[in-house]
């Protein structure tokens, strides 16, 4: 590792605003990824600063990892080199035309904050992340995050119209446009989605927005077996009904989520909740932990069944549409042998204002992958894209693999075709990690047999040394490497973090 000279540090510091350059141990610890700390942490507050820092880094061959709130930085392999942590402190809504339902925002804006503004026009953006609405737009795009609403709305690629980014050579570039339909030029903005900051640093993005439904209702349906729950899913898919979201929780996943609520929980008032949030936020800051969502104050406990499978069905539309769903879902559920069917209690108004969740159960479920890891830091949480028709076979195979390796497992199935699968060692230690690594590799193979693609989203840093989190590489890797070389010829943007070691 070449030494960063004082002169280099001084030049870097001059590229950002005063007070936005950090080399102290505490700040660098804050930006650590899997045990790797950068040599400097910088906050860029303008696009020009992002450009200057990247240009300088390219010239000096310094590796740069961009971030927003730093919450999602665990995704991917550890960086092969890590000199500069660059916070993209760009927060503005650049333009919003509610009458055209189009929007342009800077990448550092947090989803919650943005949705709050869109709400004023009765609109929203159906993006989501495992950390709820605290993630930034740039972070959500760079990690291709999604949540329960992908069922009805698809993912970012389905409503991103264009974006601006800074290449690995520090060139400001844009792709796509700002209107709802354009096919001019290559869809480079699609390449940027999920690219983990390896092709360029996203500085702003353009989206189409969607109307908030006048009425929403969520149903919690319980089944004794996964196959029964899946029969319900199939029945819905074959019907004209159009749920907004459809998630299936295993009993073990339910147990994990239930454990989040404080014991002896009671109803809190809005002031109490705000106070608790502020206290927790302060405590985190004092411990030098990143700002994150606070889950511990939520109450009452979701009370998911820990013996049965729970299906959450989100519906929305005008009153007649919602009523139609309620009328037809219940008999459909019972035909699939549901053991219980109930409407979820509407959300506390405070949280309804912050997020779009109409009930508190969604708030828990949408963050399951990160929460599982938060509660079980020795676990591996995988995301596997599997066709719904293959859900049953795959989840059973994965469960068997876990059991054979003495690992507990918890699953969340998202009907759009995603399984989040947590593998939890019952006891820590070398042996457990070996088992975990073996199980992960076997699940990768099972996923491929099911025609799916697996990724480990959360796991202990030590595991990443034994298992490639991106799973086995495919034939398209060479092409991806070529593209990487075109956008980042010096290889300074998040090197080594991505699929295939890119």
């Amino acid at each position, binding site marked *: 590792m070449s030494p960063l000279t004082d002169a280099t540090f001084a030049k870097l510091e001059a590229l950002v605003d005063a007070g936005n350059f950090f080399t102290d141990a505490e700040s660098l610890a804050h930006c650590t990824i899997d045990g790797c700390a950068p040599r400097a942490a910088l906050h860029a507050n303008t696009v020009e600063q992002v450009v200057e820092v990247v240009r300088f880094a390219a010239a000096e061959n310094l590796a740069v990892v961009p971030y927003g709130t730093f919450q999602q930085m665990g995704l991917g392999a550890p960086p092969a080199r890590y000199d500069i942590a660059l916070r993209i402190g760009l927060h503005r809504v650049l333009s919003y*035309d509610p*009458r*055209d*339902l*189009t929007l342009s925002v800077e990448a550092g804006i947090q989803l919650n904050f943005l949705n709050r503004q869109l709400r004023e026009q009765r609109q929203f953006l159906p993006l989501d992340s495992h950390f709820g609405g605290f993630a930034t737009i740039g972070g959500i795009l760079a990690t*291709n995050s999604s949540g329960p609403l992908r069922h009805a709305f*698809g993912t970012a*690629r*389905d409503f991103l119209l264009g974006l601006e980014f800074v*290449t690995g050579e520090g*060139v400001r*570039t*844009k*792709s796509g*446009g*700002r*209107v*709802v*339909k*354009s*096919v*001019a*030029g290559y*869809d480079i903005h*699609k390449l940027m*989605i*999920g*690219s983990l900051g390896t*092709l360029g640093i996203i500085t702003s993005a353009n989206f189409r927005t*969607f109307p908030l439904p006048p009425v929403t209702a969520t149903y919690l349906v319980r089944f004794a077996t996964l196959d029964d729950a899946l029969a319900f899913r199939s029945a819905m*898919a*074959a019907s*004209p009904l*159009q749920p907004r979201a459809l998630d299936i929780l295993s009993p073990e996943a339910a147990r994990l989520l239930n454990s989040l609520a404080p014991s002896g929980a009671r109803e809190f008032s809005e002031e109490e909740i705000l106070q608790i949030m502020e206290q927790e936020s302060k405590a985190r800051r004092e411990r030098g932990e990143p700002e994150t969502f606070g889950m511990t104050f939520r109450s009452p406990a979701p009370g998911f069944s820990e013996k049965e499978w729970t299906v959450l069905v989100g519906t929305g*539309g*005008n009153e*007649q*549409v919602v*009523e*139609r769903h309620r009328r037809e879902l219940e008999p459909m559920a019972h035909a699939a042998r549901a053991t219980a069917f109930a409407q979820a209690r509407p959300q506390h108004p405070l949280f309804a204002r912050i997020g779009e969740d109409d009930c508190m159960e969604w708030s828990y479920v949408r963050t399951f992958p990160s929460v599982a890891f938060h509660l079980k830091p020795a676990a591996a949480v995988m995301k596997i*894209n599997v*066709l719904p*028709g*293959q859900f049953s076979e795959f989840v059973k195979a994965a469960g068997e693999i876990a059991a054979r390796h003495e690992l507990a497992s918890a699953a969340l199935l998202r009907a*759009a075709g995603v399984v989040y699968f947590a593998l939890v060692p019952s006891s820590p230690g070398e042996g457990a990690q070996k088992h975990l690594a073996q199980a992960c590799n076997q699940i990768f193979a099972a996923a491929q047999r099911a*025609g799916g*693609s697996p*990724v480990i989203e959360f796991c202990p840093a030590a595991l990443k040394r034994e298992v490639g989190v991106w*799973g086995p590489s*495919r*034939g*398209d890797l060479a*092409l*991806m490497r*070529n*593209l990487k070389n*075109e*956008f980042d010829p010096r290889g300074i943007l998040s090197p080594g973090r991505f*699929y*295939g070691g890119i």
Partner: protein
Amino acid sequence: MDPNIIRELQEFLGKQSVLSAREDLMMYEYDGSIEVARPDVVVFPRTTQDVVRIVQLANRHQVPITGRGAGTGLSGGALARQGGILIVFSRMNKIIEIDLDNQGAVVQPGVVNLDITRAVEQAGYFFAPDPSSQKSCTIGGNVAENAGGPHTLLYGITTNHVTGLEVVLPSGEVLRVGGKTMDTPGYDLTGLLVGSEGTLAIVTEVTVKLTRLPEATKTLLAIYETVDDATETVAEITARAITPAACEFMDGWTLRVVEAWVHAGYPLDSAAVLLIEVDGLRESVEAQAAEIIDVCKLNHAREVRVAKDAKERDLLWKGRKNAFGAVGRVSPSYYVQDGVIPRTKLPATLRKIDAIGKKYGFEIGNIFHAGDGNLHPIILFDPRDHGQYERAVAAAGEIMAHCIVVGGSITGEHGVGFEKSELMPLMFTEADLEAMLRVRHAMNPAGLLNPGKIFPFGKGCGEVRVKPFPVTSSTPL
């Protein structure tokens, strides 16, 4: 073209799969646009392996390759601008697999768009992207251009319905990108390739998503005395965040031309109509239709007709989908554009188009996807009068410039091709075009795939300059 090349092609494809006589080549020198370019040889592969061999041969002889489906494209995408080999996919037209359980299908590129829907509609599904030419256009072409259509307002465009591809790279290597599910880890190569207009890879297989047919559909025809009232209606529908399944505008002039041929029941004395369709659950359709009718009336619609049965609906759509054909009967030549603008700018833009028409002395018809702001002004001109042609191009340029100034795009669905390549700098900076050229360099370094498309002619930038290759016996541009 070197007769050895033709002979080699005949050897591995068979003589019936190779056309080289001049009168045969002339059949492939045009598409739906006003451009013309003759290939040096036309080939009809049946398998991916055939395509591989064609590409390998092209590499050996450094000859350009262009792909073609049905040749209905409107931007010159399927024309061999620099001669060479034209690969026509009409014989790769099998539906390989249909998986209704998982709402997907795997098809060869030569499959006709509507045939995908026909194969699954009995079971209650359809393939959503519905270009007006869907009875003849092919899925390979749809993928190349990222095709749209009237129903894409609600359902999305081709890229939203393609999860994976098998392609042949310019190197001759066969590659699979994406798969049956979305979100394959790594860069979204499928998303990059859809809409790349055949300049990055040759598509030999497409994995598509199928959509459930809606439970209910309601088709409305709103009739107006002024263009302004119709465009204001569209702006207001959008502003109320109503998303119809389709919202098409036809002005009075186009309407009369279409009615003379199709007899769809369009009113001959109106200034404009809106053909609006809503679909989905019954309850949603009723509510949307009611609100839309309200908005039409608030904007002085003379009448709003509701199609009472499938027959009436089909007739209304037949008129819309055959409109350009109808116009073709009236004018020796017409120039269709494809600009996009924000819906809020619709009324002002149509007034602007009217003014531009008057300035240059042209009748400009407007029949387009008003719901997503995708304009299709039709400039009618007599190609025998060179002055008219030049003025048509100038008028088109002004319309395009206006679209960009109000924050829109130069192409909503037809693609850039070579018809609009010179307009790219209106939308993209040098740096933006450089990024695209680098993508092309990463994938098509020798520049043999569909050269002369998308990028302004002669555009290069130092080390990624496209190597000039011999232009053979193509028609001069």
